[in-house]
């Protein structure tokens, strides 16, 4: 599972750093392993106009956040949320995801995390940045505020 992609993103994280202009900032912690991530987002015209992050933790959480940023910046918010759902489903697949080719294309580097889904203790690591992104978008005023992005699914794998 430690594919080059993950180690590569870990060593060379994308969009790391907190932009000065932002609509919302959230800070998420995975209490079981101490992984932390802070995410700032800026929304514009129904898209995620900008996103930057800072964090600390294992290669999975940091690399996953890096991959996520690359994928969602510039996307329509609805599309980003749909992608988040896909990634969540991938993480809950216990290593048996059945992905269409379109899914694979869309998930891109995030496919590298499929193997993580076999390790219950690490699914939360992989989801950390994605959940923070979802929360930040909600915080910034998108969609129903009821969906506050707590890592419900990750909590109960």
């Amino acid at each position, binding site marked *: 599972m430690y594919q080059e992609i993950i180690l590569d993103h870990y060593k060379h994280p994308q969009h790391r750093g907190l932009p000065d202009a932002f609509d919302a900032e959230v800070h998420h912690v995975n209490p079981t392993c101490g992984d932390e991530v802070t995410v700032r987002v800026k929304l514009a015209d129904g898209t995620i106009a900008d996103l930057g992050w800072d964090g600390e933790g294992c290669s999975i959480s940091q690399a996953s956040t890096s991959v996520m940023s690359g994928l969602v910046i510039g996307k329509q918010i609805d599309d980003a949320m749909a992608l988040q759902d896909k990634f969540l489903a991938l993480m809950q697949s216990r290593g048996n995801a059945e992905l269409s080719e379109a899914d694979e294309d869309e998930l891109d580097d995030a496919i590298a995390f499929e193997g993580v889904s076999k390790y219950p*203790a690490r699914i939360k690591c992989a989801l950390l940045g994605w959940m923070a992104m979802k929360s930040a978008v909600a915080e910034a005023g998108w969609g129903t505020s009821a969906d506050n992005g707590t890592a*419900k699914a990750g909590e109960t794998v």
Partner: protein
Amino acid sequence: MAFDVETVRKDFPILSREVHGVPLVYLDSANSAQKPQVVIDAEADLYANHYANVARAVHTLGSEVTHAYEGARDKVAAFLNAPSRDEIIFTRNITEALNLLAYSLSNASTTIGADRFRIGPGDEIVVTEMEHHSNIVPWQLLAQRTGATFRWIPIDDEGRLVESAIDEVINERTKVVSFVYQSNALGTINPVRRIVERARAVGAISIVDAAQAAPHLPLDVQDLGADFVAFTGHKLYGPTGVGVLWGRYDLLAQLPPFLGGGEMIETVDMSGSTFAAPPHRFEAGTPMIAQAVALGTAVDYVTAIGMHEIREHEKALTAYALDGLQSIDGLRIIGPATPVDRGATISFTLPGIHPHDVAQLLDEEGIAVRAGHHCARPVCVRYGIPATTRASFGVYTTTDEIDALVRGVDKVKEMFTR
């Protein structure tokens, strides 16, 4: 699948045993059921091939065992038709499940934000007169801790709840109603929906003791409508050491924790701790991993046979046994004497012969029944008897075995009157 009791019997290794030189006739399933080979193998296989601790590990064995354990939760959720797997809490047995609720409720008194569960003087906790001790003592102790009043719905001569008392005993002061679905002492099947509705109408929490229902009746928690339903694994052909508490998620989410320790926390600090979401909040420490997994296998086993098929099989046995036993002169059925709204558990007395003697003499014939108050002493007090003899049936019980029972009881009578 057509139900065939002889095929079923082959799944249970102990049924080929002899006792005192004669084949075992096991009529004590309400006390604890025997185990099919698949259940025995499930535990053994886990230990021999996939064992580690759950949840915490990031290695392969830890991943395998966690999926097995959480997979068992999925199976139980499906078995109960629970809306969510997160509503399934593994406990040691149903006794612990009921105590968990009783303690979480008293913990509400000292937990911020748990006001809706607080219980105190003036409040009432309601059970019935036909409860198992495990559904009496936890509530008596809760009453003692909180100053609330402990009350109960009485039973009538036939072993049924006094219908007219239900609405009186469950009233605006009632905070908790905990009652048995099928009585282990009488065989009575209670009107669950009727009682749950009354509890809901007065704003009380409703709890169903399904220890004797789970092995015999199709269970659907959404259909029952109660807030909590619990059962115990060893009576459902599963291993000892595991039980289940199902609860409505919105209630579980607000309920204060019971046992503190590993796995039930969100974060621990010397200055204070926060707790995980259900179900983990209520599963402190290393769980009964292999036992939960094997309970999942037991659930698969009965589901494959079909709970409706089991119910029909046992209904027929009950009618047959009631007929057979009532043909014995002087024998008195304690509990409903007809097969209506009753399960495959039959208590009886014989004039002048103590149930202990009946059971022991039946044992000499290889027949295992139970004698005593069946952990439901108030039932015996109600009928003015020290104890009963109880025969109870399961998926593997045959009419031949019931014939053996009737012959055996006849013989006991003879010995004592000779």
